[in-house]
């Protein structure tokens, strides 16, 4: 019998609800170990397709309030006994619940394991399995658009354009080698180099778009920095679109907001460490700024919040220095109050600046636009077809590598049989990309592409 496994089955961080799925023979037992329903009814005694409200415990300590939903084998997603615990969304809480489940008898599900089990138990065909994957990982509208246009339409067209170029190069080279007795046109190495260069450019632009596309799909690691009381929490709540239960006035709770994903227009912002929020009780305010320093260095986006109703402090200025070469946006908050701040100073140092009133919700559109500019998504047309997964990117990159090598081979004057094999490698990488050729990489990765859980 397969062991009982569990994982978070909602995409990391998105949504107001996080679901921990437990699947396998002992799923109900495991759930009973961590979940106590308000009615005190054991999950084991519940009927299939019923839900109950209760609390999740870890070592006797309440983690969260949650709903448990029970499915009986074989009529479940995986075809096994399944219990789904729906708790409050946000990675931190869901992870805590998962940890409790894993401590109480379940093993962590490997990437794609639920889908694999569903598939093995005849609950899901492979194409369906892949579709499930796409829906889960598509977060915003543009991302869904990209997923849809992905293999069938525009991306395929874009890739095939390069592939056709390469195929005709390889065909000419092959005919020239295989039919020495027919009068096949000689290979002009200058033309050959030009055609290859053309392929190189197309592949490079495909890869460039991937980086922007990745922002849309996976979000950008975002740091909200600033002194205490400039409105960072309010900005966060504004971005989340609602006041999240987890953000309370109880000191220390805000400390728990370590990771959270919010949508800003089309762009998911992965808010990591809202430095400064928890330092209100800290005797030395600069600690917040110091932490911000480290975060800012690694962040994909920095939202530096300033209180326009107060003059710039030394801390503010130190933060501004950090922003100069960072993908940063200066968010001037509290525009509803009288401006006391030297705006020009900020403007002279930070390229992107936006004025908002987090309290009134003013300026969010501008904020959105500026962020899109910074992360490079504003010029991205997802319907053009962009690479969607790391596997696709790496296939495109190895195609580019081969094309570069082919150009180099021509340049060095090495015989054209060597050029041919390298061009064929590039073609094969593209065939792998579009799923027309089986390679070990495809076979190995097929389930690892699947989001953990679904």
């Amino acid at each position, binding site marked *: 019998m397969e062991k009982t496994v569990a994982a978070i089955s909602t995409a990391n961080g998105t949504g107001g609800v996080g679901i921990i799925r437990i699947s396998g023979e002992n799923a109900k037992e495991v759930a009973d170990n961590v979940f106590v329903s308000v009615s005190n009814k054991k999950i084991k005694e519940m009927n299939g397709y019923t839900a109950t409200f209760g609390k999740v415990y870890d070592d006797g300590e309440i983690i969260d309030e949650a709903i448990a939903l029970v499915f009986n084998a074989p009529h479940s997603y995986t075809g096994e006994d399944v219990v789904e615990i729906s708790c409050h969304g946000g990675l931190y809480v869901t992870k805590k619940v998962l940890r409790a489940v894993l401590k109480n008898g379940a093993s962590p599900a490997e990437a794609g394991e639920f889908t694999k089990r569903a598939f093995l138990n005849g609950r899901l*065909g*492979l194409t369906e399995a892949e579709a499930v994957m796409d829906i889960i990982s598509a977060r915003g509208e543009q991302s869904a658009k990209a997923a849809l246009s992905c293999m069938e339409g525009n991306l395929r067209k874009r890739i095939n354009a390069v592939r056709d170029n390469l195929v005709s190069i390889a065909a000419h080279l092959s005919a020239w*080698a295989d039919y020495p007795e027919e009068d096949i046109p000689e290979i002009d190495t200058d033309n050959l180099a030009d055609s290859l260069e053309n392929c190189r450019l197309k592949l490079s632009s495909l890869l460039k778009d991937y980086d922007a596309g990745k922002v849309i799909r996976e979000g950008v690691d975002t740091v909200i920095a600033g002194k205490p009381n400039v409105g960072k929490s309010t900005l966060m709540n504004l971005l989340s679109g609602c006041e999240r239960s987890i953000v309370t006035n109880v000191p220390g709770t805000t400390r728990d907001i370590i990771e959270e994903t919010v949508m800003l227009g089309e762009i998911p912002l992965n808010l990591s460490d809202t430095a400064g929020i928890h330092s209100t009780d800290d005797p030395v305010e600069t600690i917040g700024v110091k932490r911000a320093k480290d975060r800012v260095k690694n962040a994909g986006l920095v939202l530096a919040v300033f209180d326009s109703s107060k003059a710039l402090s030394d801390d503010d200025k130190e933060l501004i220095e950090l922003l100069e070469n960072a993908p940063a946006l200066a968010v001037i908050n509290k525009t509803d109050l009288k401006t006391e701040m030297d705006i020009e100073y900020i403007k002279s140092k930070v390229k992107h600046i936006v004025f908002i009133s987090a309290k009134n919700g003013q300026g969010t559109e501008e904020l959105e636009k500026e962020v899109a500019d910074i992360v490079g998504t504003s010029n991205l047309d997802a319907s053009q077809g962009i690479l969607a997964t790391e596997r696709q990117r790496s296939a495109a990159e190895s195609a580019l590598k081969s094309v570069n090598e082919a150009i180099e081979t021509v340049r060095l004057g090495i015989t054209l049989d*060597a050029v041919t094999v390298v061009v064929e490698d590039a073609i094969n990488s593209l065939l792998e990309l579009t799923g027309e050729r089986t390679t*070990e990489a*495809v076979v190995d990765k*097929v389930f690892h592409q699947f989001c953990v859980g679904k």
Partner: protein
Amino acid sequence: MKFLAGEFDVAVIGAGHAGIEAGLAAARLGCKTGVFTINLDAVGNCPCNPSIGGTAKGHLVREIDALGGEMGKAADDCFLQIRMLNRGKGPAVHSLRAQIDRRKYSERMKHTLELQENLELRQAEIVSIEKADDGRWVLLTRLEAQYIAKAVIIATGTYLGGKVYIGDVSYESGPDGMFPSKFLPDSLEKMGMKIRRFKTGTPARVLKSSIDFDGLEEQEGDEPVVPFSYDTENPSENKIKCYISWTNEKTKKIILDNISRSPMYSGKIEGVGPRYCPSIEDKIVRFSDKQRHQLFIEPCGIDTEEMYLQGMSSSLPEDVQLEFYHSIKGLEHCVVMRPAYAIEYFCADPIQMNSTLEFIDFEGLYGAGQFNGSSGYEEAAAQGLVAGINAALKILDREPLILDRASSYIGTLIDDLVTKGCNDPYRMMTSRSEYRLILRQDNADTRLTPIGRKIGLIGDDRWHRFNVKQELIKAELERIRKTVISPSEAVNSILRENGTSEINTGIKLVDLLKRPELSYDALKDIDETRPDINANIFEQVEIEIKYEGYIKRQLTVIEQVRKLEKKILPLNINYENIEGLRLEAREKLNKVRPENIGQAGRISGVSPADISVLVIYLSTLKNKSAEEKE
């Protein structure tokens, strides 16, 4: 009246290029072997071009030789002219091609069969083969003699249901006026084998003295002669020239005006012709923008005046043939001794076989050559060798010989046939191999002779010479990696002459050789410790060094692919029952019945998604059998 005429371990039907290698291999491995031919004067006949080798085909001949086959040695014995094609295009596509004396070649092969221990050569038409109750096969001749054999190799070439077409005229016939194998097709169909019609064709032979050679381009052989066989130490010299001419607008017009009289275009021939070796009318119709096509005029032998017109095969009526041949420069007054013809024949769909060339559904029955859907003497010989070896290995209860794509062109050829099948006669080309830089004609022995030795087809002498050569290559590689060339005016002037940068500190010889501008030969004056060894050792070392990066790249791919080939698919899987496979994939997989995941992935219509289904299915099979064991 039927009578029992003999018993064999292995019976081979046909003594063409496939049948010869099959028969010799089985007999040499110790099996009592019978080789049957419709006419003893047609053993090893070359009914088409009087040449062996060519692009990729030359690779096949070298590989056959490296495994212990006969073709390369016979070609070396009978060649009239030999050339290395594609010099300058890179080592991967260098290919040997020999014009041969076709009569001499045929005699040489017949005699070899006659002298071969354990082998009986018989003139007999096999009209049926049936499985006996004891699992052996019963072969019946036209004269009602019965032979019993443990294994049968079908190598019937264009004889099987052969039908010749020349314009409106058609008649049942084998090649070169031999009678066809008329009854065997019914017997094969009766046992449930899938057979279909293919066609091929050959150009006219013309009288040498009627050709005006003035102004035709001459083509001579290479000096010094490079032989096919690793056994041939003192090859003879080039004896003849070939000539090149071109078709013209007039030729084109004559053909187009009469195209309706071609049986191919009127629909009389149902068989599918070779895309890669088209008739002149095919070339003119398909490449209508081309003004002219090249043709080669080649002697058929020393003791004959017949000349072969390579590139000019046709099935147009004889009167049209005369007209268009006469339109060609040099052939204006040529006397056509044998007209061109097309021949249609039965062959099996090779996806019914596995990589040993044994039919999956008919144990002990093998196919080789044109019968398997290929075209060409060399392709035939390669399959004959593998079928013969495998029939013998099976009878001897030994492991089968399966050559994978990464090992050889032979492996590539067989994998293509049994995995993808073929819709027209299959011709080998260098572009069919993804591992071209590794599967070179110069290193066929390195790749395959150890395998031939293990099988038992490489004798002690040959094996000893092989090992000496390998040692020399190794030693030379070591030497150039160690040897340091110091900067000096002598050295730098040679570097300058060859257009490469000078050195001002010591440099390893190997690093100089890596420079595309420098060859072994160019460095000979500054390479003081160079040993006095055969030039082919330098050639191989130079290729290994110059193409090291590309070779490594291909080796990495091979390693990955071999991992997939290790995932074995049991033959008894019913793909209809595997949930998750797409319909097309189920159908194709059931037809081809691949031996492993790698092969399954190469079947057209089987996508990577289907492959992942299979991988998972395999893992559940394993889990199940593990559970059962518990």
